[in-house]
């Protein structure tokens, strides 16, 4: 495929190339496909459904404080490659979405000037508590405090999650509902068993009760 300069008719290649650009130039007036850019920020393209920018924390109920799914297990903090997550675990516990008593983060900071949007925190989270946002216009005049997001700034409702990643959020909800149903059934079974065993010698019943906590 080596074309030799000596063999070519001088000027032919240049004219051929120019014909190509001319066709594209003229074509851009008639076919919208040839226009490949949009005039940002007046025009915007919708982000891809899987698009990811920075993480946020999901909460379920109306109250962002109480409904936070995060249980401060600190797996994301440990696995985060650039170590941009900082978590402080609570001393007390509160019930999570299945009703189990869990710790919660008293402090959850993400330094988004360090975060590299790799999504590993989302992957390793066993509680579906941290997800990726699609919001990318995050410029701020304060490059230290303004880019260190705390728990309040990171919290987003589950509805918001449904809005930005509909398919993924539906899958997550189905999985959580299944888990909750399983946990409910198990709690009910243990409660029944505990009730049945109430008449029996106390150590066994006590063990069963401590194992499941206040699962009811």
């Amino acid at each position, binding site marked *: *495929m080596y074309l030799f300069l000596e063999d070519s008719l001088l000027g*032919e*290649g240049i004219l051929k190339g120019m014909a190509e650009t001319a066709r594209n130039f003229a074509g851009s007036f008639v076919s919208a496909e040839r226009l490949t850019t949009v005039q940002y920020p007046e025009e915007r393209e919708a982000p891809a459904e899987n698009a990811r920018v920075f993480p946020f924390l999901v909460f379920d109920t109306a109250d962002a404080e109480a409904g936070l799914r995060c249980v401060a297990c600190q797996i994301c903090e440990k696995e985060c490659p650039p170590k941009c997550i900082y978590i402080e675990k609570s001393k007390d516990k509160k019930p999570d979405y299945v009703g189990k008593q869990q710790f919660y983060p008293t402090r959850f900071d993400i330094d988004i000037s360090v975060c590299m949007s790799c999504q590993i925190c989302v992957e390793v989270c066993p509680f579906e508590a941290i997800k990726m946002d699609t919001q990318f216009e995050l410029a701020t005049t304060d490059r230290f405090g303004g880019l260190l997001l705390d728990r309040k700034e990171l919290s987003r409702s589950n509805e918001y999650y449904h809005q930005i990643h509909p398919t993924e959020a539906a899958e997550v909800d189905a999985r959580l509902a299944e888990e909750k149903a399983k946990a409910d059934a198990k709690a009910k079974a243990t409660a029944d068993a505990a009730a049945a065993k109430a008449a029996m010698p106390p150590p066994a019943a006590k063990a069963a009760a401590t194992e499941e906590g206040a699962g009811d």
Partner: protein
Amino acid sequence: MNPSAINQEKLEGWNRPPIVEPDGEAELLEVAMGPHHPSTHGVFRMDLALDGERVVRLKPVFGYLHRNHEKIAEGVSYLASMPYTDRLDYICSLTNNWAYALAVEKLVGQEVPERAEYIRVILAELTRIQNHASAIGFLIQEMGASGTPLMYAFKEREKILDLFEELTGSRMMCNYMRFGGCRVDVSAAWLDAARKVVLGLPAFIDEFENLLSSNEILMARCQGVGILRPDLAINAGVTGPMLRGSGVNYDIRKVDHYGIYDRFKFRVPLGDHGDIYDRYMVRILEMRESVTILDQALKEIPGGPIMDPKAKIRGFRPKPGEAYGRIEAPKGELGFYLISDGSPNPYRYRVRPPSLINLTVLEDMCLGSNVADVVLIFGSVDIVLGEVDR
């Protein structure tokens, strides 16, 4: 590969322009080219010694973009290095992911499901096409055609990056492959979109070739310039389109058959002059071969899982040992060498970057050329400084 196996008669006329030794009294002009964008590849400096317009010495200086990738990787878990590999050669993150995943899979003896192998091939070939398209675009940009061919390349690249974004969530920092498979499954809609893009690729390559291949300016600037002799290329460890442009038939997809490359029919384009034009042409032809691989892979892709159910992505401790995983990345042989001492972190983590090793022959290609050609020769190596400096 043995350099003596090369037919020496074939190499008649392969020599670079004669280096005229400057007279003792003539003063050499020393020029520091860079470190701020000698071209569009990143932060790199060339210390040139010039005798008039001719290059007498060239010293590449790099390290401006060094960010301690290998040492960081030794301190974090195997999974946490995966997003860092995206940042090596940031134009083709998916092939970097694959090379690293391959090395870890070798280390822990992990199998990959068939569907995941097909997905990997599809993504790697799409990456190769967009890399070669932009590499040629940058090369022409360095020739002085500021914009037009690069925009043609980027127009097509954008379609491929849109596919990546839809699948992995990010255009360039994909972080997609995992040890034992891939992160998310491709949907039927994504495969249809990919087929549509692949269907349009031959037309794009034709258009690109119409625009460039027979252009007299390109031929005059590229032919017979920056000649790399195959024996030198082999001795220097050059790989990828650079090596094949010099006529050495060495493609790791054919040599190693890593993944499932033994199932696809494709040819390895070779140059026969070793100049810039040959490297350009090898890249164009490789894009065409990638399209045929994509056609086959998109037709044959089977159903099934994308992740080995037994595979662990985090919290595993490989047995003490070592592994070297290498693939034919768009720029050449990309290898990851890992040593495990049984802890959750690698004991040693080493990248064999094609860009750095291809860059070692830069001086030899440039000596005796004009200063204007140095930029062009540098562009034809197709490097990314993120990978050179790591």
